[in-house]
């Protein structure tokens, strides 16, 4: 008797649990997407609609806000600055970071522990704060208010990630592949370019994009270090009090777009990258 009831109840509770599970997954997806959707509505609506009440829940597909954004004095320059700074950060952090990642994954050398500590230490520091003294230093060297100066600071932010991510990528390439290349007539350099590089390139791209987004999103140092050559984030921050709503939303949307592309581009590497970087 009791067995029979247990049998009857079990599939039922399991089905309930399953619905609950699916419902929570859907809810959590909505939790992420709906706010972005709201921003999309605001971006694709005319300035009048954006400032009106109540809000529609469907976009009008009016490019008024975006046109206003594009026409706003200094906005396009700021956008251009953001791209330039982020591109510089991307190139510098990979060029400087990847060799160190390679050294960490391939060599045992005295001082390795200390070096790893230095890298991890940077991750434990509120780095944007360093923009304050750097502002003084940059004025002395003529780097103040330049894209390159800001890119240097953003590279400092991105380098620990570049080192750790490339470290984990290189660790994923068996040492034996390189050794095989050496025994087949390669030097260290040609073994790297002929064997390691082709295998690592997609991963390097992913970490380069990661560096790009770190710079693209950074607000504090950008606001501290640029005055005339504002990046998009700095420009929006500076004008938060004074700019109209539709300008904020259009600007916010432009900020979000690379993020969507970024996560899509690197989704395969995201977890592998962090898995080893934890150690």
């Amino acid at each position, binding site marked *: 008797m009791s067995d029979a009831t247990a049998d009857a109840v079990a599939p039922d509770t399991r089905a309930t649990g399953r619905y609950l599970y699916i419902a929570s997954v859907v809810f959590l997806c909505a939790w992420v997407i709906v706010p972005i959707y709201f921003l999309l509505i605001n971006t694709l609506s005319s300035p009048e609609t954006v400032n009106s009440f109540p809000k529609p829940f469907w976009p009008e597909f009016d490019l008024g806000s975006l046109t206003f954004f594009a026409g706003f004095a200094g906005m396009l320059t700021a956008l251009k600055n953001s791209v330039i700074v982020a591109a510089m950060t991307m190139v510098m952090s990979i060029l400087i970071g990847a060799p160190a990642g390679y050294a960490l994954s391939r060599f045992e050398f005295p001082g390795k522990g200390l070096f790893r500590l230095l890298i991890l230490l940077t991750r434990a520091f509120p780095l944007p704060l360093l923009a304050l003294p750097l502002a003084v230093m940059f004025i002395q060297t003529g780097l103040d208010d330049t894209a390159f100066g800001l890119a240097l600071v953003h590279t400092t932010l991105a380098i620990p990630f570049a080192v750790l991510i490339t470290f984990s990528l290189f660790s994923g390439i*068996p040492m*034996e*592949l390189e*050794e*095989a*290349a*050496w*025994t*087949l*007539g*390669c*030097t260290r350099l*040609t073994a790297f370019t*002929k*064997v390691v590089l*082709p*295998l690592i390139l997609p991963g390097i791209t992913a970490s380069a994009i990661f560096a790009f987004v770190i710079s693209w999103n950074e607000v504090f140092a950008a606001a501290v270090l640029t005055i005339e050559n504002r990046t998009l984030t700095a420009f929006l921050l500076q004008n938060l009090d004074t700019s109209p709503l539709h300008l904020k939303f259009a600007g916010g949307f432009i900020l979000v777009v690379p993020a969507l592309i970024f996560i899509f581009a690197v989704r395969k590497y995201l977890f592998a990258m962090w898995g080893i970087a934890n150690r």
Partner: protein
Amino acid sequence: MAQIEIKNVAKSFGAYQALHDINLTIEDQEFMVLLGASGCGKSTLLRIIAGLETATTGKVWIGGRRIDNLSPKDRGISMVFQNYAVFPHLTVFENIGFGLRMQKLPNDEVTRRVERTAGLMHIEQLLKRYSGELSGGQRQRVAVARALAMEPDVILMDEPLSNLDALLRMEMRAELKGVLAESKTTAIYVTHDQVEAMSMADRISVMHEGKIVQAASPIEVYRNPSAEFVAGFIGNPPMNFLPANPAESGKWQVAGQVIDGPGASAQLKFAIRPEDLRLADDGFKAVAKVIEPLGAHLLVTCEVDGQLFRAVLDSDFKVKPGEVLNLTPQPDRVRWFDPQTTLAVA
């Protein structure tokens, strides 16, 4: 002509001494197997010859040319790795031709040599594939073909068969032996599998704790182990040991038996292979503990004088645990070891 000479090679990793003063000469076209348990230094020695590791001290010559300060590409060697190291971003063809391309050989020469070695390893039909589409055995073949295509003076192999399943391993063993004999290359082969070593080698170097304990032909290593370690390592099951006390001159007291032995004094160890024991009316009193019928023969684990003792007997023989057997050693197969030096005593 590629004789390999290794003189006084030692290697330490920090405080850990991986190799102690290795001296070894490998003749031209010889198939030398480095055999030992993991951590004995056999791979380190191979990698020093390949140039992947630098010896702390010592010198290496290949074909009369000193090579220990050259980089791997200039040593006239090629190597087969344990995990094959088939480049995943290249086709099988480009993998086999990789070294030839590095030498900037003309295209038709590369094609000719790749096709020849691929034929040798029976992988002609795989040339357009990538390593992800190959089975373990096929990858193995690509790795060997890639090494052979270089037509090296010396081919080095680091446990090349250990990742294959048992049946495939046996098949590849025979094939590899044939191909290498035909190519007339000097070969150094690292393995921990004694059956592999016995079946392939011209000569085996048994290594233990960073030293070469014995370097001799397989049958010599098996019949006349130069040290207790070799006797206990080679053979499955390994040799039996019993303590021996001197009786009169040339006679030794072993587990209640008097056995002819060397004329030394003090104490010795008596040793006999399990298959060199015969059932007799008189002999060691062995209490059978575990009986393992292995098909071809019967493995009986017994206790003699409180010591573990194994005998390999005819598979028709019937015995139960607890029974007492009388085992007598074949006199010409008895070996003696000095417990102080652990070396063989003639």
